[in-house]
């Protein structure tokens, strides 16, 4: 065999799929420069005492000490936890229930779906304003119930420190469950029709089929949904500002607002960076291992 003699060398790996690499430059730049770079930059400056402008005057852990001794920061974290856990649970449960109802081959499905989904088209600012208005004790629900004769009725979540976060939750759920429903509906539609038939032949009641068979099968949908809800929760800001501005008495403060206020209002970038580093850290602890498992090591699909 003389063909074996002309050994062509393996070409450089760098230039294989060159076009794909070139096309990915925006993504690579975004990932490295903006997300990674921005994160590193933020972490570095969180150890400085930068005020209005970033400056490299390092002060060690001062910013963190101050952060963790600030009662507002603690309130913010508490609020985010309460809001986050409840919002996750409720939007998943409500979203799934609505999807399950819509999946019963009902009439006017399109109409109902549109109604449940439309709030998602509205910004948090609009959502916040509207709900502020409905929950306003002087005009809104409380006023209406009182004018119906129940004088002692009290429902003013936005003006009561203890429950203000639930007032925000109501608006948040109103805005977000539509999308969750949509994702769940898509997931339900992806379930093999035969599974349903098998369950019916086995005599398994519908609710049991959902609970023990269908929901476990929808793992990927739940994961996508979780990413979307969770990333929204961490960034919770607009809604709070529009509805309560963190009030009353700072009872509805959230971490993102803490970051914003310290960076720009208090003109204490260092403090803001320290707070955002803590947020990033907690996100990273939860998200990075998951994201790596989900998108990193796995093969195609």
């Amino acid at each position, binding site marked *: 065999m003389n063909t074996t003699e002309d050994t062509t060398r393996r070409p450089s790996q760098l230039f294989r799929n060159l076009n794909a690499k070139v096309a990915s430059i925006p993504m690579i730049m975004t990932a490295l420069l903006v997300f990674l770079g921005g994160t590193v930059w933020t972490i570095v400056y969180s150890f400085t005492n930068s005020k209005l402008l970033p400056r490299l005057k390092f002060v060690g852990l001062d910013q963190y000490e101050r952060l963790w001794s600030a009662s507002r920061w603690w309130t913010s974290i508490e609020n985010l936890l309460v809001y986050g856990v409840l919002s996750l649970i409720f939007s998943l449960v409500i979203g799934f229930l609505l999807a399950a109802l819509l999946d019963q081959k009902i009439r006017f499905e399109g109409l109902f779906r549109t109604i449940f989904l439309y709030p998602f088209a509205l910004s948090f600012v609009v959502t916040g304003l509207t709900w502020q208005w409905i929950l306003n004790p002087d005009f809104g629900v409380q006023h209406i119930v009182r004018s119906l004769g129940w004088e002692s009725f009290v429902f003013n979540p936005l003006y009561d420190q203890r429950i203000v976060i639930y007032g925000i939750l109501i608006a948040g759920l109103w805005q977000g469950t539509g999308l969750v429903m949509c994702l769940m509906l898509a997931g339900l539609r992806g379930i093999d029709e035969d*599974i349903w038939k*098998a369950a*019916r032949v*086995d005599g398994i009641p519908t609710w049991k089929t959902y609970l*023990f068979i269908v929901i*476990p099968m929808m793992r990927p949908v739940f994961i996508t949904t979780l990413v979307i809800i969770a990333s929204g929760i961490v960034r919770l800001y607009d809604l709070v500002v529009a509805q309560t501005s963190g009030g009353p008495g700072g009872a509805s403060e959230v971490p993102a607002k803490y970051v914003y206020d310290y960076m720009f209002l208090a003109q204490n970038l260092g403090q803001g960076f320290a707070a955002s580093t803590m947020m990033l850290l907690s996100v990273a602890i939860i998200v990075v291992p998951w994201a790596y498992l989900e998108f990193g090591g796995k093969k195609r699909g």
Partner: protein
Amino acid sequence: MGNDGVSVSIRNLSLNFGAVSVLKSLDLDIQDGEFLVLLGPSGCGKSTLLNCIAGLMDVTDGQIHIKGRNVTWEEPKDRGIGMVFQSYALYPQMSVRGNLSFGLKTAGMAKDEIAKRVARTADVLQIEPLLDRKPSQLSGGQRQRVAIGRALVRDVDVFLFDEPLSNLDAKLRSELRVEIKRLHQKLANTMIYVTHDQIEAMTLADRIAVMRSGQIQQLDAPQTIYSRPVNRYVADFIGSPGMNFIEGEVVLSDGAPRFRFDGLDIPLANYQFDKAGAQAGQATFGIRPEHVAVNSGDDWPFSASVPVEIVEPMGSDTLVWSRLGKQALTIRVSSERAPRVGENVTIGFDPMNASLFDAASGDRL
């Protein structure tokens, strides 16, 4: 025959999806312990019929009786049926044991009774070692076995199979086919089995119902369907490679019927005509590849010399593609006698084995 011998009886069943009529007032009686195969091309309504029997689809008209009971309006679980699906439809998050026992648990059966039934089923299907695995950890064949087990464990009268093997590869398919056959011999339940694989149909069935667009064309034992198809559609559908069809006409010369085509002439003296008897007219002559002999030296009612165009060895047999007159002819010979491409060979066959169809209606003559 009394009603007690009948397991499933379908009366005048119709089903429409909107304006589309999928089943057209269909009647069918299945004997107790019978293995009935529904055979037909894709979209002819096999799955729909099965779903109606199972109660998974609401019929538009007609009745369904199982074991003499009118179950037309009953829930699937109360009909005494078990069903096995093409896609297995196993509950993916449960172990095999969970899959088998879930229905029983839901029905509120006692724990030890469930355990006993699961053990018995696992024993019958030889899936004991798999009981604690998840479906994703099983091979296709094992999955299908579990799916059968799920029907088995419920101790039902009637088994419904919807193309249970078509997701498997050829080797597994033939293995599981035998297993299902054995199972039937052992349990003696009624089984209704949908497929569009004729080998499955031929090997498994006590009777085959060949369907076409929502109607049953022929309901008979496999050999009858194979050798005496009621029309050209059934003849064409059964057998691989398919029956050879030769277009021509029946003439009655001196009262003796003959089939004329492309200047050739087949005597039909041996052919068993239908009640109506032989009549002249355009017709199609059908003969199966294995009924054509090659260079046999024997004396056949009809013989001719034909060219060999393609030779397809298939292991024990070989297919020879040739031409009779101007029309294609496939011949199946045992591999030892396979001719070579380009040769001319003498073929012969007996019209007794052939089928003759009306050219217009396609009905058997």
